[in-house]
């Protein structure tokens, strides 16, 4: 059996979905759009399996935005393979009148419905008295009361779904006054498209332009019909909605009463909003929240991440010692295990970020963040909610890109996803610090400003400014999909439901590990092969040459030199040298060339690669690498190789270039199209190249 959940935003639809399905959920996209589609399964008391789709929240069947549009496409497509057998209309029991509008529209479509009065506890506490049997009779529909926070009523709901088939399907309710004069027209449409009733015809005629399953010829047909019959969509929609509200009022006045009660979630919310939406205190408290999130993914996550890295390092050495020296051993330890390790190390950051985001969503604060930041972010084609991914991006782009899921508007979400990698993440920090220590004097400006700190700040600001600029450009060129209006309901504040927080964290981590993880492991293996193999016996020859040149050195002293020579002669080394003529205008040599290639595993690998090339071994620390770089002389000029120009050129390249396999994988999986990460790869790297070239030539 297939059922669908539909309801107003903030009616508690998602937590009802969580209560029904638990962890048996899957997140995908609706076909053709980047609107998230949650599906799941659960078992009925009679052991039958039910397939549930959670539709985006909407106020009516007259959608204003792309995510609401999906609901219509889902319901009105007669060929939809997931066409629901029952629709659960989820309504907020404490705001029933308004919630019944959507119910009455869905009922007019003739779908079998169970009306779920959710948050019944809050409604009762705040003084609503609902005569359920009367309401059920007047609306001609079965009703279940639930409290999706505690899980109350869920068993009853499952029982109602089980018993449902025993009820006789009802005829669609009477024709609205509004459409009296259009009945013959509607009947004609219903016949032509084999529609169940004439309310479908109305919605087809009203929405034909945006219904994705209609062909162009159909659209032309509807267009002429609208003109010929004086069908004014907006006027009719207004009339219909008012008529429905009048009907609803008639019904609710008979069976709903409101008593004054001391418990009033609205007055509580008002008090909190006086502070949290205040022009000064509101923004300051938001800043503190952002700071907390940032500290969490930047600092708190470090401990478990280090621990995971250490564990994998000991795994790798364990396998190296206990398995025979063989190609497969190398593939397993240096290729696959290294890849798994880089996937797993992201988990603490993702879990922490989504813990915070889920809490912000659950309490109702996230909506306020979106509203408060709207004015600034809108200028760049971004959403108020984009601020969270953008700030998180300063720690790591991976959790940040996953966090864009919270943005409902598909275009704003896409732009955020595309620009987040430009924000300087924590993996760029080691490169910045090494280069700044190398080229920027350790002195004070005007006695109190540290030059090196200023340089670091400048690098971070540069990333942020470029991200905003890119957003502005993308906003120009991407097709318009925006909401027509920004009229947003602010839910009352609630305590977070910890079960929902847990499910969110689990789902995000799972999707990341399964979706992006695969890609990361594959790229990791390719990078390992590039750095460990070469044509014929090139690498063995290189090793032999080192041994010949230093006959007096001990084996321990030889190993770093051999590793350096082997890397130089590997595929990666050959590539680095091939790259040299291309990157020479930026002031880079083949050593940096090799590091650029290996950096694709993660930017911080730059330091490790430079360390191997300089013959310091894998474990060369930042300081010794820096010393080596400081003493290197440019053979052409006779001056230090790492001048101010080369140093800044390199930093700017790292600031803008897309050189992170995990980001590539995540953007691919999140946008569900390889075009976007490939586009980032091409455009960001051209941008990085040009910016570096300009920097190098200005400072030289």
């Amino acid at each position, binding site marked *: 059996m297939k059922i669908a959940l539909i309801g107003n935003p903030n009616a508690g639809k998602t937590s009802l979905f969580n209560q029904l399905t638990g962890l048996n959920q899957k997140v995908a996209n609706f076909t053709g759009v980047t609107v998230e589609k949650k599906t799941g399964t659960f078992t009925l008391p009679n052991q039958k399996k039910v397939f549930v789709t959670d539709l985006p929240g909407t*106020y*009516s069947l*007259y959608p*204003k935005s792309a995510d609401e549009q999906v609901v219509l496409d889902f319901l009105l497509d007669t060929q939809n393979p997931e066409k629901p057998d029952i629709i659960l209309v989820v309504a907020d029991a*404490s*705001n029933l*009148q*308004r919630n019944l*509008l959507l119910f009455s529209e869905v009922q007019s479509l003739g779908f079998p419905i169970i009306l779920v009065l959710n948050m019944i506890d809050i409604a009762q506490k705040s003084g609503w008295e609902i005569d359920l049997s009367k309401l059920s009779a007047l609306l001609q529909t079965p009703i279940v009361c639930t409290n999706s926070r505690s899980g109350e009523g869920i068993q009853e709901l499952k029982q109602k779904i089980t018993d449902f088939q025993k009820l006789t399907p009802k005829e669609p309710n009477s024709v609205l006054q509004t459409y009296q004069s259009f009945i013959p027209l509607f009947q004609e449409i219903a016949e032509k498209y084999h529609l169940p009733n004439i309310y479908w015809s109305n919605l087809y005629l009203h929405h034909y332009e945006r219904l994705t399953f209609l062909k162009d010829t159909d659209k032309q047909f509807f267009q002429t019909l609208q003109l010929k019959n004086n069908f004014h969509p*907006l*006027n009719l*929609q*207004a009339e219909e*909605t*008012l008529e429905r*509200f009048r009907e609803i009022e008639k019904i609710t006045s008979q069976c709903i009463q409101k008593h004054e009660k001391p418990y009033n979630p*609205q007055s509580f*919310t*008002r008090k909190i*909003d*006086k502070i949290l*939406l*205040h*022009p000064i205190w*509101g*923004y300051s408290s938001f800043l503190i929240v952002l700071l907390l999130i940032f500290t969490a993914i930047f600092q708190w996550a470090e401990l478990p991440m280090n621990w995971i890295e250490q564990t994998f390092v000991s795994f790798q050495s364990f396998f190296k010692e206990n398995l025979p020296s063989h190609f497969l051993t190398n593939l397993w330890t240096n290729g696959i295990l290294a890849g798994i390790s880089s996937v797993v190390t992201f988990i603490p950051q993702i879990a922490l970020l989504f813990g915070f985001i889920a809490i912000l969503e659950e309490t109702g604060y996230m909506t306020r963040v979106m*509203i*408060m930041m*709207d*004015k600034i972010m809108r200028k760049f084609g971004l959403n108020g909610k984009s601020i969270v991914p953008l700030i998180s991006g300063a720690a790591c782009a991976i959790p940040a890109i996953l966090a864009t899921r919270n943005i409902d508007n598909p275009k704003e979400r896409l732009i955020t996803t595309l620009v987040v990698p430009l924000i300087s993440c924590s993996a760029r920090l080691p490169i910045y610090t090494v280069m700044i220590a190398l080229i920027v004097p350790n002195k004070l400006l005007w006695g109190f400003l540290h030059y090196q700190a200023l340089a670091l700040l400048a690098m971070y600001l540069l990333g942020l400014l470029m991200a905003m600029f890119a957003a502005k450009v993308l906003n120009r060129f991407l097709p318009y999909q925006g909401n*027509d*209006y*920004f*009229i*947003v*309901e*602010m*839910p*009352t504040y609630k305590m977070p439901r910890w079960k929902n927080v847990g499910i969110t964290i689990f789902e995000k981590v799972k999707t990341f590990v399964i979706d992006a993880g695969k890609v990361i492991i594959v790229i990791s293996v390719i990078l390992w092969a590039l750095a460990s193999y070469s044509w014929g016996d090139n690498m063995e020859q290189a090793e032999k040459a080192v041994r010949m040149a230093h006959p007096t050195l001990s084996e321990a002293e030889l190993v770093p030199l051999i590793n350096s020579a082997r890397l130089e002669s590997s595929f990666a080394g050959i590539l680095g040298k091939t790259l040299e003529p291309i990157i020479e205008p930026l002031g880079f040599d083949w050593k940096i060339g090799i590091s650029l290639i290996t950096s694709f595993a993660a930017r911080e690998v730059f330091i490790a690669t430079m360390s191997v090339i300089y013959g310091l071994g894998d474990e060369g620390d930042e300081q010794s690498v820096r010393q080596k770089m400081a003493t290197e002389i440019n053979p052409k000029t006779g001056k230090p190789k790492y001048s101010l120009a080369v140093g800044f050129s390199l930093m700017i390249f790292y600031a803008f270039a897309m050189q992170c396999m995990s980001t590539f994988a995540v953007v691919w999986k999140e946008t569900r199209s390889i075009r976007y990460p490939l586009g980032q790869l091409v455009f960001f790297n051209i941008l990085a190249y040009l910016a570096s070239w300009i920097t190098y030539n200005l400072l030289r």
Partner: protein
Amino acid sequence: MKLNEVPAGKKVKVQEYLQKGVFLKLLEMGVLPNATIEILGKAPLGCPIYIAVQDTFIALRKSEAQTLVIQEVQS
């Protein structure tokens, strides 16, 4: 007077909707034609504007508030 010109704390009724779309959106959110709207506050620069209608809290942009011609209600 337009909705965006009303200071926080006042209560108003809408006399005229200059844009059908805004009217419809508000209507679906439960703002019936004769409803009393309370202005709760405004963000810096007057956008967005926070309002309360019965038990519903709504935020809307200045540009949308400008399409609502209102009359003050004495409370």
